[in-house]
C-alpha cells in the first residue's frame, strides 16, 4: 500500500457532492489500480456461457493485468495470469478460442488448460532441483456465482457471496435465475471517460435522457432501487409495462417482450467498481469494463440467451439486443454520449452535486425511489473511504 504518496483530494462535506477533480486527475489512476483493481474487491471477468465447451478460453484484462480464462478438460473453469511462468511472456494473444494446450513461443514452455506445465525443452540444464510441478501458471483467487466468474488479487477480499451482499436476489434474477446462459456475441467499444464516470452514469439513471421513452409513450412500471450496505452495489427492480405500438418506429419487435408477463420486469445490477448487468425486455447483457487509463474505459457488451430458449427466442434476443442497449443502441447510444460529455465537463472546478432523492446532507440515503439519482451516493462514500480521502468539516 502507498499511503505515503500524499494524494490529497478536497472531498466536500455534503454527502450529495462529489469533487469533479477525481474524474480527471491522472495521478489517482495508479492508486486506484492498487487499492481497488488489485485491492480487496471481486472483479467479474467472464461468464461460463462464453466458454461452453471444454478447451474454450477467453483473455481479458483486470486493469493492466492480463488474464487467461479456461474451461478445462475436467469441466472446471479457471482464471490464470496470461503470462508464462518462466519469463512472463504473454502466453495467449487471441481474445477467445479453443485449445488443448497453450505454448509460449519464447522457450516453448507448454501448459494445459488446467494451468499445469506439461513441457519445457532442455530442462536438464535448468536451475538445481527444477521441477515442472513448481511452475504452473499463476492465478488470482477465483469464485463463481450464477456462472459469472470473478477474480481478486487480494487475500483480504471477503468470500464472493458476502461481497455481493444485499443485492444477491436481484443479481440472481438478472442472471436468469440460474445463470444457465449462452453467449450470443459482443459489442466492444472504448469510451473517452474515466472508469468512475462510466460506472456512475451507466446502468440506472433518470429516464429524462431518453427521448425514445417519450416518443414511444413508454411508461415504466413501478420500481425501486436498493443498495448494498458495505460497498454500495446497486440493485434495481422494476415492473415493465408493454410498450404501446407507435407510429414512431416501424418494426415494433425492437421493443416487444416475448414471454410470461410475470417475468417481464427490468433488473439491473451495478457492482463496485465497474460492472453493470442488465436484464431488460428479452435482453441479458453483461458489461465487462476495463479501466485502461485515466481517460480510457473499454467496455465489452456481452449478450446472452438462456440455454432453454428455442430457436425463435434466440433470434428475437439477437434482433432486440443488437439494436437496443449497446454503444449504437436506440436507448443506450445516448448514455455513451453522456460518458464522454461528463468527462469533458468534469475538467471545470467544483463539485458534481446530486439532487433528485437527496433528503439529507449528512446521511447517506437508504430509501431510494425509482428515478432518484441518490442511489449512487453509497458507492461514492465507499470509494472515498477506500481511497482515504477526508471529508471536509465545513
Amino acid at each position, binding site marked *: 500500500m502507498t499511503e505515503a504518496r500524499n494524494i490529497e483530494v478536497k472531498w466536500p462535506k455534503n454527502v450529495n457532492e462529489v469533487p469533479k477533480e477525481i474524474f480527471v486527475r491522472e495521478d489517482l489512476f495508479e492508486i486506484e489500480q492498487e487499492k481497488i483493481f488489485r485491492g480487496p474487491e471481486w472483479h467479474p471477468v467472464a461468464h461460463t456461457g462464453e466458454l461452453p465447451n471444454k478447451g474454450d478460453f477467453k483473455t481479458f484484462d483486470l486493469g493492466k493485468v492480463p488474464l487467461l480464462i479456461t474451461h478445462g478438460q475436467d469441466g472446471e473453469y479457471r482464471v490464470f495470469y496470461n503470462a508464462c511462468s518462466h519469463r512472463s511472456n504473454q502466453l495467449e494473444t487471441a*481474445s477467445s478460442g479453443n485449445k488443448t494446450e497453450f505454448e509460449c513461443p519464447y522457450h516453448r514452455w507448454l501448459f494445459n488448460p488446467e494451468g499445469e506445465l506439461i513441457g519445457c525443452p532442455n530442462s536438464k540444464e535448468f536451475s538445481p532441483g527444477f521441477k515442472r510441478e513448481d511452475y504452473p501458471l499463476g492465478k488470482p483467487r477465483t469464485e463463481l456465482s450464477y456462472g459469472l466468474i470473478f477474480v481478486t488479487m487480494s487475500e483480504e477480499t471477503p468470500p464472493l457471496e458476502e461481497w455481493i451482499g444485499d443485492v444477491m436476489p436481484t443479481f440472481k434474477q438478472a442472471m436468469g435465475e440460474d445463470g444457465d446462459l449462452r453467449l*450470443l*456475441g*459482443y459489442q466492444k467499444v472504448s*469510451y473517452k471517460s474515466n472508469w468512475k464516470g462510466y460506472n456512475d452514469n451507466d446502468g440506472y439513471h433518470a429516464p429524462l435522457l431518453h427521448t425514445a421513452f417519450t416518443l414511444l409513450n413508454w411508461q415504466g412500471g413501478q420500481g425501486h432501487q436498493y443498495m448494498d450496505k458495505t460497498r454500495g452495489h446497486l440493485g434495481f427492480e422494476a415492473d415493465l409495462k408493454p410498450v404501446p405500438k407507435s407510429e414512431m418506429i*416501424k*418494426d415494433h419487435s425492437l421493443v416487444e417482450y416475448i414471454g410470461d408477463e410475470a417475468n417481464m420486469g427490468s433488473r439491473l445490477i451495478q457492482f463496485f467498481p465497474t460492472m453493470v448487468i442488465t436484464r431488460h425486455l428479452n435482453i441479458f447483457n453483461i458489461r465487462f469494463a476495463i479501466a485502461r487509463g485515466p481517460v480510457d474505459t473499454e467496455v465489452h457488451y456481452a449478450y446472452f440467451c438462456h440455454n432453454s430458449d428455442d430457436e425463435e427466442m434466440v433470434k428475437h434476443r439477437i434482433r432486440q439486443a443488437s439494436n437496443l442497449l449497446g454503444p449504437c443502441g436506440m436507448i443506450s*447510444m445516448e448514455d455513451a454520449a453522456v460518458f464522454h460529455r461528463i468527462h469533458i465537463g468534469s475538467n471545470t472546478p467544483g463539485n458534481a452535486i446530486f439532487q433528485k432523492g437527496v433528503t439529507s446532507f449528512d446521511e447517506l440515503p437508504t430509501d431510494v425511489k425509482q428515478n432518484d439519482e441518490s442511489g449512487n451516493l453509497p458507492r461514492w462514500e465507499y470509494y472515498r473511504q477506500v481511497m482515504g480521502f477526508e471529508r471536509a468539516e465545513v
Partner: protein
Amino acid sequence: MSGVSVDLIAQVDALQAQYIRALDNRDFQGWVDTFDTAEDTAYFCTPAENVDNNLEIALMYDDCRKRIEDRVTFITDIWAGTFQDYRTRHFIQRTHCEQKQEGLYLVETNFSIIYTPESGRSDVQVAGVYKDEVLINGGGAKFKSKKAIYDTTVLPRYIVYPF
C-alpha cells in the same frame, strides 16, 4: 472480377459511390434509397470477431426494410441533441464481384472511415469489408443486402452513423 462486364461493374461502383456520398453528406433518405424496396432487404454492421466465432450479435441488425428506415428515425429524431456530432469520410476499394444469379451480384469492397469530431482532429474510426448482394435490372442497381463487417475489435467511440 470473373466475367462480369465493364458496364455492370460500373453500375456496382456507382451504387457504392452513391452509398458513401449519401452517408458522408448525412443524407439519410439518400442512404435508404440505395437499398431495394423489398421487405426483406437487409443491412448489418457486425464486428469481424463475432462473424469469425459464429456469433450473431451485430452493432446494427437491420434485417428488414422497416429497420433500415427506423435507423434514420433513431439518428434524426430519437438521438437528436444528445450526441457529439462528427463528420465521416468513407474510403472504399472494390476487391471482388461475381454473378450469383441473373441480375444478382456478390460484391466485396474494403472500407475505412475517417471521422472528424466537431472541433476535433481527424482519425480512423473503423476498417472492414462490405459483403453485399447487389440487384441490377433495367432500373439501375440497389442493395438487396449489405453487410459491413468491421475489423476494429474495439471501436474508438460510440457510433451514430451507419458504416
